[in-house]
């Protein structure tokens, strides 16, 4: 059996809301958060988990981390059922929420780690060794003696990651780990995750809205919408399904005669640059090139695939999410 095995998971939430304004009666409303979700993940995989807000991503993570009990279905991680024997189970997982800190705010980071050592009952030498390893990989050395509140957002996220990996979890859940981070911090974080995944064969399930994260890290992605799994496979295969348009940017020598170009290309100008988009399916690339050359002498030109966020938005729309 695979490392994570999820079969037919269902979860509904019951929300009570007022029937109408001013009414004292409340109505029960059942919101299905997960509908018959199944998947398998092998040990050492790095999987992206995406979907629009409210799709059921965090519900899945909460069930797999033992915080929630599903209504029906089965799940096992390394042979253990997450919602049975919580205390034993959580020793083997780590969770990082991008917007919720687990370290203590006013004390030096090192003190927080020492307390986590006591909470997880990590033997002293194992703790030392792991802490050194993580400190080096995350470049935390100078920060250990600093109170958390004085760290920048990027430093804080690195500190959080270290905290959640001290007990050497076999499985790591990451929920929006790069939210609000600057470019340098994002890159550093991604490098670290790749390292941890490779060196320690830690299985990682990454939930995010940042498609760059997914593209950079995850060979495999699962798409969730309305509580159902809609896609499971490689990111490029997923994108090629929706990625029909290309954007072309051309720089001409002198003023081009754009009137020779057909309508519907969404032409825009930005100083010397002419930008347009086309679908290779309907207008083959050589034909477009001919037309562009007719318009003037091309000095420089680039062809780009569509912006990945735009693509995902299109995809969600097409999947009716």
């Amino acid at each position, binding site marked *: 059996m695979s490392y994570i095995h999820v079969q037919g998971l269902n*979860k509904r*939430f*019951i929300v009570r809301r007022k029937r109408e304004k001013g009414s004292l009666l409340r109505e029960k409303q059942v919101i299905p*958060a997960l509908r018959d979700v199944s998947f398998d993940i092998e040990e050492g995989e790095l999987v992206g988990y995406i979907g629009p807000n409210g799709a059921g991503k965090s*519900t899945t993570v*909460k069930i797999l*981390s*033992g*915080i*929630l*009990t599903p209504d029906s279905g089965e799940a096992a991680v390394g042979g253990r059922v997450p*919602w049975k024997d*919580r*205390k*034993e189970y*959580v*020793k083997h*997982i780590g*969770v990082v*929420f991008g917007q*919720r800190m*687990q370290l*203590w*705010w*006013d*004390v030096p980071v090192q*003190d*927080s780690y*020492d*307390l986590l050592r*006591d*909470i*997880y*009952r990590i033997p002293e030498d194992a703790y030392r060794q792991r802490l050194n390893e993580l400190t080096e990989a995350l470049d935390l050395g100078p920060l250990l003696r600093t*109170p958390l509140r004085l760290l920048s957002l990027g430093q804080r996220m690195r500190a959080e990651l270290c905290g959640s990996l001290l007990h050497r979890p076999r499985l790591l859940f990451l929920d929006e780990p790069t939210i609000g981070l600057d470019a340098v911090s994002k890159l550093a974080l991604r490098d670290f995750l790749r390292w941890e995944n490779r060196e320690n064969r830690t299985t990682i399930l990454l939930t995010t809205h940042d498609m760059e994260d997914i593209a950079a890290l995850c060979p495999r992605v699962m798409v969730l919408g309305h509580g159902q799994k809609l896609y499971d496979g490689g990111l490029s295969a997923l994108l090629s399904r929706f990625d029909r348009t290309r954007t072309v940017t051309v720089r001409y020598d002198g003023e081009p005669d754009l009137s020779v170009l057909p309508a519907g290309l969404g032409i825009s100008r930005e100083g010397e640059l002419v930008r347009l988009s086309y679908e290779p399916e309907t207008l083959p690339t050589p034909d477009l090139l001919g037309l562009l050359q007719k318009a003037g002498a091309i000095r420089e030109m680039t062809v780009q695939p569509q912006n990945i966020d735009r693509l995902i938005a299109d995809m969600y729309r097409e999947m009716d999410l």
Partner: protein
Amino acid sequence: MDTIRLYLRSMAMLMKSQLQYPASFLMQTLAQLVMEGGELMAVILLIDRFDRLNQWMPGDLYFCFGLMSVSFYLTECFGRGITGNFPSMVRTGQLDTLLLRPRGVLTQVLCSAVDPRRIACIAVGTVSLVMGSRMAPVLWTPVKALLLAESVFCAFWLILGLFLIEAVLCIHSVRSVEVANALTYGGRSACQYPIDTYPRPLRVLFTVVAPFALVMHVPASHILGKPLFQWPLWTAFLAPLSGIALFGVMYLVFRRAMRFYRSAGS
């Protein structure tokens, strides 16, 4: 044993973090001192006007006030995770973080906060206790000292148990959680004075439901040499245990509520 060590280490760390802002800490401690001093002042003024309360003389009344004050604020100090922070932990989802760690939820909640400012209130309570026992006067014997210690210890668990009611209501997302204050803060206000002050319904409430009377007044009345209801001495040792029993019951209820939390979502 391991749990106690974890608790002590957490406390040490939290104290350290509170002392990061010494000026603010001092100021707030002072405010607590004035606050509890004001409560004591009210008792002094009442005694000034009325001289006594039934058979209870001024010394007895200060003693009872002090006993309640010390017990209540010891709980507020060391049980802060439950008495103060729990509702916001549920609201903000911080409780989820605790479920991700291999320790009992209640243990972690208790480890998550301490309120050393209450030391000021405890000091006022101690002053009142000493003043009362001087005035009464209490002739201290080892047995009486033991009774006092047991009473404070059991009251700690009783009050913690009563605050758990609010925690449970919170988990079930009941909107009017303040109702629970009637038992906790109401119990503190009412049982600063001996239980026989009150009419039967209140007496029953604070004996059977929230047994402040059993935990504090029965032993206190023996220490003061005026046994309530003429109960024999051994009852003074037995009665406070009801506080621990109440905590035990509430602990079980809390565990059930956590099961509900995990199946109902947040």
